[in-house]
């Protein structure tokens, strides 16, 4: 696979422990753009476009850092290369954020 066909993720700040997928990432090699451009990482599972990929192991209770600031708390351990979203990351402010469907983001406790 040439560099041009290896999918890319964007790291905004050097302190970040996640990067954003610029296209759907299948498991396998991922190029990093932005800060620390040129590095590569291995995606351990599929990561949808626009979603986050862990750049390091993150312990349960640890900060997930993007833009150089904490954007929430891992409520279970996240492995390097893993998909980071509603199933493992919660807001420190919005108590609803861990009750949402990870695929659609729709609240699971609203009845129609």
């Amino acid at each position: 696979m040439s560099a041009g066909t290896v999918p890319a993720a964007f790291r905004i700040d050097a302190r970040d422990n996640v990067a954003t997928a610029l296209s759907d990432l299948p498991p396998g090699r991922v190029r990093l753009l932005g800060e620390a451009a040129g590095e590569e990482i291995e995606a351990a599972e599929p990561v949808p476009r626009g979603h986050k990929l862990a750049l390091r192991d993150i312990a349960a209770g640890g900060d997930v850092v993007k833009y150089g600031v904490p954007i929430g708390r891992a409520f279970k351990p996240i492995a390097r290369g893993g998909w980071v979203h509603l199933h493992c990351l919660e807001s420190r402010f919005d108590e609803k954020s861990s009750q949402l469907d990870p695929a659609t983001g729709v609240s699971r406790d609203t009845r129609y």
Partner: protein
Amino acid sequence: MRPNELVWRGYARKNGKKGVRDKLLVVHTVECSSHVAGKIAAAAGARAEAIGFAGCGDNAYAVRVLASLVRHPNVGAVLAVGLGCESIQAKKLAEAAAGEGKGADWLAIQEAGGTLKAIEKGVASARRLLAALDNTPRVEMGLADLIVGGECGGSDFTSGLAGNVVAGRFFDLLVDAGGTAIFEEILEAIGLRDLLAARGADAEVRRRLGAVYDKALAYCRAVRQYSISPGNFAGGLTTIEEKSMGAVIKSGNRPIQGVLKVGVPPPRPGLWLLDTTPDPHWTRYGISNPNDNEGLTALIATGCHLVLFITGRGNVVGNAVAPVVKVTGNSATFAAMGDDMDFNAGTVLSGETSLAEAAAGLARLVAATAGGEPSKSELLGHCEYHIPYKYQDPDPGRSAPGREE
């Protein structure tokens, strides 16, 4: 590009202000007069725009927004259309416009003798006011004369990586050129109290930024709703803190000069935060941030000549009083919604342009739009606005020293 080379011809107002459009505003003062006002504006032609407030009851906030919009520098003339029994006084809106040297007239449907006679009277009045606008003197304008707002909506992961980043760079350029930038959406700063407060230009502004943050957080806690939606989650944003960081980036990096309330224009150039959240009040009315048009209207009522609307997923709206320039950081959205999008900031993600090049390109587009080139939403006839019932104290620092309002 040298920012001070970006000049265009604006409209000189008798109160000394400069506008980038020369509109006739046809204002309804209650929903009951909106049909007549809309018919008058439609008959009067392209430079006439219809706005108004739906409520019949008294609301000082709505009056302040309407009064600010009739005084807006993009407005050359005002025709206020009332039913005749509502709280908001058409005559007083016309007098507010006349007091700034603008052409102004008003009518009440009950006095005019009903729908048809009011429309006939209003159309004749609108045509007289529009004819007078042909003589509005022109004046040279540059970035130092300009007040630009920043709003984001329909955000996706590209907003914080590209769209808002390029808008923030442009705001730095605008402020450095002596211009004025206003950003809002304090509800999308949740999680960033220290970071936001640290950007205040002095200790009093830092205190005000902390206070406005605390008010926004208390509001979110009370309503159990943060400014994040299923579309944001599906697009990859996980928490309000993450969305906040992507949103606050659109303010750029310059010091924040103060906190503005809706309808109170900035007293001097620089970067300002607009507080659109309701202040504590016994009625508790006012849902903050009901839709993007409310934010756009609030920015324009606070004096913005033009607003940058940064949208990842793609919103289509414009505004009745000021041009809206839509910026997307998502090249796919730019391609799919090309009729609606004005600027593609996604080129910084693909590496086609640098951040500085993209910001300079956006500055040229802003100058061209201010100079009369229609934005995409203007071309498509978008003229949205939204004015809700709300309570805000426009002068909260009256008893406190060092206030900015």
